[in-house]
């Protein structure tokens, strides 16, 4: 019988939630790395027991942990992230030039085919790759050639937070950066192109400039790698040409600000977002926690509320804190800044909390195990 393993990164450690395919009863293990921030954990599609974790702290910096047994035991691996060459400067909040400085790893994306190859998206924004199981890391510096000197951090920092690997084309990678935009490589990360045509960001002096868009998250269904969905700092967008152009599909959402976006495991046009009130009020409108689902790839949205708090709820759901499983009845999961991790075993029709009182949840990833 299939089972699921949910990897939860929080502000104070990592938790691993496991259940059988029914997803009714859960075992909760953790905290792993108690007291540390766990920005992201993700398992290798090629070897699900190989899991990578980004562990960090303001005191002690960045640690990368690796497990070879599904998260039961861990070992620290390489944590040296050195920019290639002389990285120069990017824009600072006050418009001055600021040296590129490594701060932390926001996102880890294991290769689809090789457990020892893993990508890391870091702050200050850059893409690193390891081909030796995380022991050593090399930057793919061509990304910064795309007007990197003009990139400027948003309030949350200039992090590379999304890495999408095309399952049909091993040379194609999409990445997204706050607050720079979306970029695509067609040669395995050596060179890049800006992929922001159609984005409109009112907070920029030129709202349609190539870079500077605060992209919060992009998502892809593996069966349609040319179709991308985006939650931006305002606006839900979609692209049907691999990021060459984008169209707004916010439709009837009560607000189109938010952080996560994800795609149903079996329905490529079914997508999920969690709207929050605004850029200055990071909580659900009216104190009602609602996931919105579109079965039409955007524009037409329905509120999913069954099992979610519908009064006095002022949590947020961060960009990496939503995921889906691939069981026959697609499971949808998300974690909140209030420490709840919710699970739906019916594509979002109803929800139950797996846990209610974890530290603030930063990331949620789900592994569907045979």
């Amino acid at each position, binding site marked *: 019988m299939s089972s699921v393993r949910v990897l939860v990164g929080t502000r104070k450690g990592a938790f691993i939630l496991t259940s059988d395919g029914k997803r009714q009863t859960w075992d909760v293990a953790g905290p792993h790395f108690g*007291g*540390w921030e766990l920005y992201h954990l993700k398992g290798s599609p090629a070897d699900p027991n190989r899991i990578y974790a980004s562990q960090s*702290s*303001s*005191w*002690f*910096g*960045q*640690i990368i942990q690796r497990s070879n047994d599904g998260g039961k035991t861990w070992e*620290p691996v390489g*944590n*040296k992230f*050195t920019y290639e060459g002389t990285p120069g400067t990017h824009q600072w909040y006050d418009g001055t030039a600021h040296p590129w400085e490594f701060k932390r790893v926001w996102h880890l994306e294991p290769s689809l085919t090789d457990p020892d190859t893993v990508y890391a998206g870091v702050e200050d924004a850059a893409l690193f790759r390891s081909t030796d199981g995380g022991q050593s890391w090399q930057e793919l510096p061509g990304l910064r050639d795309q007007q990197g000197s003009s990139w400027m951090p948003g309030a949350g920092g200039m992090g590379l937070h999304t890495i999408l690997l095309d399952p049909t084309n091993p040379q194609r990678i999409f990445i997204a950066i706050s607050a720079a935009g979306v970029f695509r490589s067609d040669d395995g990360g050596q060179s890049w192109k800006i992929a922001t045509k159609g984005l409109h960001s009112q907070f920029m002096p030129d709202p349609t400039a190539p870079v500077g868009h605060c992209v919060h998250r992009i998502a892809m269904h593996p069966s349609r790698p040319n179709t991308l969905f985006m939650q931006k700092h305002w606006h839900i967008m979609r692209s049907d040409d691999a990021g060459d152009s984008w169209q707004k599909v916010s439709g009837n959402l009560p607000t189109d600000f938010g952080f996560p976006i994800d795609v149903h495991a079996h329905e490529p046009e079914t997508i999920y977002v969690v709207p929050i009130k605004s850029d200055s009020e990071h909580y659900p409108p009216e104190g009602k926690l609602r996931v919105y689902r579109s079965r039409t790839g955007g524009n037409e949205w329905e509120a999913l509320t069954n099992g979610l708090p519908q009064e006095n709820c002022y949590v947020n759901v961060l960009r990496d804190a939503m995921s889906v499983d691939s069981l026959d009845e697609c499971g949808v999961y998300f974690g909140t800044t209030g420490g709840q991790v919710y699970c739906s075993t019916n594509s979002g029709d109803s929800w139950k909390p797996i846990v209610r009182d974890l530290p603030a949840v930063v990331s949620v990833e789900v592994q569907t195990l045979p």
Partner: protein
Amino acid sequence: MIRVILPQHLRTLANVAGEVTLAVSGAITPNSIVSALETRYPMLRGAIRDYGTLKRRPLLRYFACEEDVSHDAPDALLPKAIASGAEPFMIVGAIAGG
């Protein structure tokens, strides 16, 4: 032998309990102690000092013989009591909260 006291999170990371004792050759300085520590416990590399500059991470402090030596030159000699092992060299995390 040099005695070193690590903050709890670094003891966990290095998988050690209590004090660490180290053989350090040459001059006994913050840099020589931390270098010996990193050699013995490679997982601590980058967690105490920056990889490139070898500067102490800003939210860590070095204490020796009830003195904060964090702002002394990292290659300055430490007191004899540290070199003899009579007193521990302490790596301390800055206080969090308020």
